[in-house]
């Protein structure tokens, strides 16, 4: 198994030419937001900020699913872990996220049965193998993961696995864009739209947003030249005063997306108004399990107390997720909040903006500019 196609998108010569075109074209000082956490990481990993002109500021957005998960949801996960005869299954990123009093990782050290899985279907398999236990999968993610989670619920129904449950904290991207442009104090001149999410929902899913807000939008892939290509398209739209909704990732993303995946997702989930960390409630931006499948809904089958959880004191994750602040502007960053001892989720997730800054960014003179 080898991904052969990736190398050409890392070709230094292609990247150099793209940088040259961007540099020649970019006159206005602009702020572009990469919505997706995987883009944030790729921009750092490839040192893209070092090669693009100073006219372009890249700001990181709310596209890390763990980071935007509300504190009350994290606390609910931890509460679920304490239920008797229950196995919690989760993707690894959630383990370290601090809730109000604990984290899943600490609960595991206390003896709770919390297992990391790579796929929802592994969680379902655990349920089948342990019929005397209740197995809960913590559903955190965007449209990229939601279809597989939906498929696992359909499979559980097929297999009559009545001990399999999902706690759905899924969120959807297009609705968040509306909230971002409406947030006071932020100027976003263009969006680098997520690649993986767009594979599922297609560029067409952003049309309502684009038609209403007319902000330049380009869907991008994750290799250096993918991102540079998207930057070039955004700069061109802005300099020509011709905002558009474009696709710089046509080898993976189509206009209509993956209809089958969207179909499965819509069969099991329906839109709901949900809270995002740092943003608040965004209408129809969450996915709740439809009543037809309520037997698999951990939110309904377990008696979890309604939470009014406070976000950690002094933590700027909320402002960082909306581009109002960069991690270096947070008073806790690197001083109290580190990946070893995180205060907020953006320092935990492998796609979190604070984790990316901590790992790759250095304020040393003349070494890196951000």
């Amino acid at each position: 198994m080898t991904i052969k196609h990736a190398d050409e998108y890392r070709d230094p010569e292609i990247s150099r030419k793209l940088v040259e075109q961007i540099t020649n074209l970019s006159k206005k000082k602009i702020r572009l937001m990469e919505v997706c956490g995987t883009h944030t990481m790729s921009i750092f990993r490839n040192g893209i900020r070092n090669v693009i002109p100073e006219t372009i500021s890249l700001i990181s957005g709310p596209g890390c699913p763990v980071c935007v998960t509300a504190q009350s949801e994290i606390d609910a996960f931890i509460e679920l872990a304490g239920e008797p005869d229950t196995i919690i299954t989760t993707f690894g990123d959630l383990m370290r996220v601090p809730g109000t009093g604990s984290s899943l990782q600490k609960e595991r050290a206390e003896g709770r049965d919390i297992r990391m899985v790579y796929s929802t279907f592994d969680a379902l398999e655990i349920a089948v193998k342990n019929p005397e236990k209740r197995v809960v999968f913590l559903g955190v993610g965007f449209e990229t993961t939601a279809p597989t989670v939906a498929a696992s619920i359909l499979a559980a129904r097929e297999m009559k696995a009545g001990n399999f449950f999902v706690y759905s904290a899924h969120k959807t991207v297009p609705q968040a864009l509306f909230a971002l442009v409406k947030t006071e104090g932020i100027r976003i001149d263009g969006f680098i739209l997520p690649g993986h999410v767009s594979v599922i929902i297609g560029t067409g899913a952003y049309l309502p947003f684009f038609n209403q807000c007319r902000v330049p939008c380009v869907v991008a892939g994750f290799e250096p030249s993918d991102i540079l290509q998207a930057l070039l398209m955004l700069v061109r739209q802005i300099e020509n005063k011709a905002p558009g909704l474009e696709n710089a990732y046509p080898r993976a993303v189509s206009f209509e997306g993956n209809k089958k995946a969207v179909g499965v997702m819509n069969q099991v989930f329906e839109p709901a108004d949900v809270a995002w960390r740092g943003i608040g409630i965004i209408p129809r931006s969450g996915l709740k399990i439809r009543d037809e499948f309520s037997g698999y809904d951990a939110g309904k089958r377990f008696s979890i107390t309604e939470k009014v959880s406070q976000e950690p004191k002094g933590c700027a994750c909320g402002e960082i997720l909306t581009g109002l602040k960069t991690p270096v502007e947070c008073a806790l960053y690197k001083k109290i909040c580190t990946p070893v001892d995180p205060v907020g989720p953006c320092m935990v997730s492998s796609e979190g903006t604070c984790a990316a800054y901590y790992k790759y960014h250095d304020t040393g003179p003349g070494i890196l500019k951000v």
Partner: protein
Amino acid sequence: MKSEKILLDHGSGGKISHSLTKDIMLPVFDNPILSKLNDGAILNIGGKKFAFSTDTYVVDPIFFPGGDIGELAVYGTVNDIAMCGGSPLYLSAGLVIEEGFPVSDLKKIIKSMGNASKRAGVKIVTGDTKVVPKGAADKIFINTSGIGVIPDNIDVGCEKALPGDKIILSGTIADHGITVLTQREGMKFTSSVRSDTAPLNHMVEKIFSSGGSIHVLRDPTRGGVGTSLNEIAEKSECGIKIFESRIPVKNEVKSICELLGFDPLYIANEGKLLAFVSPQDSERVLSAVRENEFGKDACIIGEVVSGHPGKVFLETLIGGTRMVDMLTGEQLPRIC
């Protein structure tokens, strides 16, 4: 929110493991030999220098493509001694076995330890076996300790890197960690990746006999090349610059890393070394490494610089720069 309990992170070999060593163990065991925190202790007995090292192996699964826990336990300690500049001679082996463990598997592991010690040219001269009730340990854990003689003219250490030094890496990275990972339950990969588990003492002998001026030797095991380079930069109080384009990673390993979101720079190796060498000797030492059967893909991946002391920077493929930090938290538990 500091934890009152030991977390898996504490065994990662990264930042959090270091804090455990520094905060809990060093103050109690307080002595100048330990406080160097090298791969092994360097002892001065009767005017002769010895390297002494210990390691415990808990790898899961115990058999994996390219090796098993027994071979790993022998080579791991052999390599730790070699990285101190020592020629490994004698090993001890301590086994903790779970009740119910198949004797046939034990025989396989012991045979493999025998073959490995022959290949490395060391003798297992003392040992101990304990059996614990089912569930009190997982299958088998092995501790090995070893001792070797350091020739008078050899003086290497993580604190001895100098600006200008070239950094030689003996081959492709991340093979071991990714191999073990693909064998785990729940990972449905069919791949041909193999662990790089190998003895490095013969390669180290070749390096020294090349006559080059060697300052640092290090095998980047847990925490990977990224973490090892950070430790060297910190202890030597100088900066390190490496080039992404020069770091060899097998295509298949690269693909799996990408799928799972791992950075190969932080993935464990069990048969690779980093050598910091005076610039004028670098080509000579590189040839010596390449002559060894485990060093065919060796290359110079970067150099030591006087700027940004304590920090490691990487020049990316497209000419950008980024920091390479130490591993924080556990990427993959029970990798060795």
